[in-house]
């Protein structure tokens, strides 16, 4: 029975931190709430026998991506964030839409057919002992998923080109640069 209790605690922490991120006025607090959420999910990965993914989640997601978010928030000093939504009718419509989405997914998740044939996790059989370990992930990745692997290589190259194009400005300065860009360059 300890599993359900641990699951309940972690699920509660995850949901609360997600709501915290949603409602916090300070961008830095929102980022830290998201880090807590990522940590909870990393522990879930550990529990679902995906240890390698848990480590990747911590190093890549919480480690690199959230650091970048905090970096940008600090860089832009944009941490005082107004909570009020822009148009009056926008908020209720959005909430209604989200509740409908939630209702559908929960309805389905609780429906008998789904519950019936959802396979519950059996204890890991001896021959699949290395399930989720880096070897297992590596073997599957480099045997069956070769094409996606190469596409990720291309994606990272494109991301690098995109970053350089968007931030480095190497054109000949002529009249076309709008004055506020020059102003901000002088100020930065």
């Amino acid at each position, binding site marked *: 029975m300890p599993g359900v209790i641990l699951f309940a605690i972690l699920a509660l922490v995850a949901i609360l931190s997600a709501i915290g991120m949603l409602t916090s006025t300070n961008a830095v607090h929102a980022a830290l709430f998201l880090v807590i959420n990522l940590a909870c999910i990393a522990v879930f990965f550990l529990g679902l026998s995906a240890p390698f993914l848990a480590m990747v989640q911590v190093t890549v997601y919480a480690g690199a991506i959230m650091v970048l978010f905090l970096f940008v928030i600090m860089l832009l000093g944009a941490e005082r964030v107004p909570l009020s939504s822009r148009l009056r009718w926008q908020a209720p419509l959005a909430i209604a839409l989200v509740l409908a989405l939630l209702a*559908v*997914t929960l309805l*389905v998740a609780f*429906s008998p*057919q*789904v519950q019936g*044939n*959802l*396979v519950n996790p059996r204890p890991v059989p001896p021959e699949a002992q290395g399930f989720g370990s880096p070897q297992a992930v590596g073997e*599957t990745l480099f*045997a*069956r*998923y*070769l*094409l*996606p692997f*190469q*596409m*990720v290589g*291309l*994606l990272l*190259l*494109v*991301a690098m*080109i*995109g970053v*350089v*194009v*968007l931030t480095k*400005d*190497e*054109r*000949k300065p*002529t009249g*076309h*640069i*709008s004055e*506020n*860009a020059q102003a901000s360059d002088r100020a930065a």
Partner: protein
Amino acid sequence: MNLPTLESINLAASLPVLILAGWACLLTAIDLFISPERKHWTAWLAVLGLLASGVALGFEAVAYSQRGAVSAFGDMAVVDGFALFLQGVFLLSAFLGILLALNYLPRHNIERGEYYTLLLFTTSGMMLMAMAADLIVVFLALELLSLPLYVLSGFAHPRLDSEEAAMKYFLLGAFASGFLVYGIALTYGGAGTTLLSGVVEALVGGGPAPNPVLAIVGMGLILVGLGFKVAAVPFHMWTPDVYQGAPTPVTAFMSVGAKAGGFAALLRVFLIAFPATGDTWGVVIAIIAALTMILGNVVAISQSNVKRMLAYSSIAHAGYVLVAVAAARYPEVEPLAVSAAVFYLLTYAVTNLGAFAIVIALERDDGTGVEVEDFAGLAKTRPWLAIAMTLFMLSLTGIPPSAGMVGKFFVFQAAVQASVGDPLILTVTIIGVLTSVISAFYYLRIPVMMYFRDGEGQANVQPALGVALALTALATFLLGVVPAPFLQMARHALLTLAG
């Protein structure tokens, strides 16, 4: 776990994509050593890459006609008629995209080598999307297609509206891929595999953990994700601002390429993975198609900026292709409907790139000059330009002798065949015909402005743009007058199950 052997990877079948992607990487390196003044060399090298990929595609098509469809990269990708025909459309639109940009970029002082390499990356993403046989490849191809487009739409980045366009496109794109990933997650849960051919077994009760209800909810979320990419109605809000803000050659390529890529994914996922639940998604897509056609055409009437008008027209044309997709759920109509949709994408690509080429010709350096009034009196000052624009507008409306007419006729023929037992498709077809009539109003407004109003319609057609204009005008006319060879090719563009 079926370990793929070397010949099941068979690189030969997917040679066009490999050439293009490899050449894009190589060109990124070569471009580093080209001085800023001679960036057009990168453009011509990119065109060279496209031609090489086109030649490989030709050989592959010949091989395909002999031995039929074959799967590549294990069972991750499939090379069938559908993939080859669409890869041809992507290569053509990329080639015209480069021609459009060749003179536009230096004139607006945003000339950088990366434009052409990013264009090649987007095209390789689209080609991979056309041959995807696994939901992972669909997702990654969608990302490989979208990331360069986010950067390209923000290419004139000190200019604020280009950055805003990129920002809106980026946020909506990320939001859509969030839905797509969650949809794939639920489909994986319901079917036990992400292979498209595997999913179809699970829905019928086979597969490791058959859970059809979960797979159907997943399918709905995938439809939302791809709906954003194709700019169908409930998810189209981003289109006008992004199309207006992005540099015009990027808008032209985005309205043609990204849309065709989105439809490639839509057709492949829904016709291969979810044929069994055809009646659920068939109704939804038919309703979305009707809404898209109505809203796209009606709102376009009130637009004075031609770029925004073409944005709403691209939404409307997505609606017509969606009609073909909705009709394709009946197995007996599927071959005709798929080739109709694919042929429509070809005609739309050629016509829309031509229309945008003329908008580029008229656009002055500071981005103005694209209002409808600026076309006044163009017939007198630039007669050839006026004739070409009239041809494009006729084609977009679907009036003979243009390519658009054949495309629409083909789609409506498929829809009529499908609507024999289905009143909904019948009503959608009627709506389609009515909205085409409405669209005549805002399309033909421009030829009227050119011929019957006087004004000093001035435009500068630079060499590369002239070539693009000539090609698109010729193609629109030829596809309209003698469509037989292309229709024949489209008929071979059939979907086959992978693996």
